[in-house]
């Protein structure tokens, strides 16, 4: 496996092709929240493509780091940002969402769901490096890809001077929680929304920053 940064600055592959290549694992990495919010997997995927294409979004394709196999096919990846950038990107996403809701016939339902989910995820502090999404395609699981991606995320943050790391994980994803615990993450808080599949755990880890990697 070799890591590849799927940024929009790569001139060989178009941004559209890059978005298509990361969609399968990135879509799954946002669930169950993402499909629940948008009402269907089809709509969730469509929204994800829009968010990936917006450079100001938390989920911008510019923030995606991929891991590819020997043939160059994506097997998984992650989206990670410094805390302050998360805060600014989320404000940009709010403005984009507002603009979308103004023309969406589904606005009241989406707003109601946002209201239900308003305390589901912990805030990200400026001092933290945040793992917004991480995913591995089904055929590449149980081969250490997730562990490798998590190591890349932590190294990435350490290089940028961070010593505190945060992520949110579905409480039902036992495999991922085990992986994070093994890497040194501890569970900080759990929140759930009644009568929905949404139950998330916020996990944090402290590690000294390193500049020599």
């Amino acid at each position: 496996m070799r890591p590849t940064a799927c940024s929009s600055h790569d001139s060989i592959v178009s941004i559209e092709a890059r978005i298509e290549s990361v969609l399968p694992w990135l879509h799954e990495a946002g669930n169950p929240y993402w499909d629940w919010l948008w009402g269907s997997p089809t709509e969730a995927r469509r929204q994800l493509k829009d968010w990936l294409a917006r450079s100001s979004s938390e989920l911008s394709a510019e923030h995606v780091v991929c891991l590819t196999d020997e043939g160059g096919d994506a097997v998984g990846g992650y989206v990670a940002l410094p805390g302050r950038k998360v805060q600014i990107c989320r404000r940009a996403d709010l403005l984009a969402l507002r603009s979308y809701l103004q023309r969406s016939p589904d606005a009241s339902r989406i707003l109601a769901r946002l209201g239900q989910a308003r305390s589901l995820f912990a805030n990200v502090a400026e001092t933290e490096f945040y793992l917004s999404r991480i995913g591995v395609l089904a055929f590449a699981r149980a081969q250490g890809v997730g562990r490798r991606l998590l190591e890349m995320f932590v190294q990435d943050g350490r290089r940028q001077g961070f010593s505190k790391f945060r992520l949110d994980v579905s409480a039902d994803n036992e495999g991922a929680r085990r992986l994070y615990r093994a890497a040194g993450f501890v569970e900080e808080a759990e929140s759930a929304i009644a009568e929905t599949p949404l139950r998330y755990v916020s996990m944090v880890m402290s590690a000294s920053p390193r500049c020599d990697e």
Partner: protein
Amino acid sequence: MTPSTTDVRGFLLQHFSSTIIAAGLRPEDLDDSFDLLDAGVVDSLGVLEMIAAVQEHFKIFVDFEAMDPADLTVLGSFSRFVAEHATNSV
């Protein structure tokens, strides 16, 4: 007639006064750099509700296309932007 920066600022401080006081702050002490989201006065959805409340109160529409997202929840910047970009709603 659209509101001035002072009008918008005053409305926000009044609208959120109980939350601001509950956070141990005094609305009259807050300066223009006060960030409502960072301080926990509003949450993410609360930002959308704040925009809706301002528009409804002043009977205006605001196009936020040109706004720097970093300024969205900053008391002074938000108030100034609204004052400069508001159009009367019908």
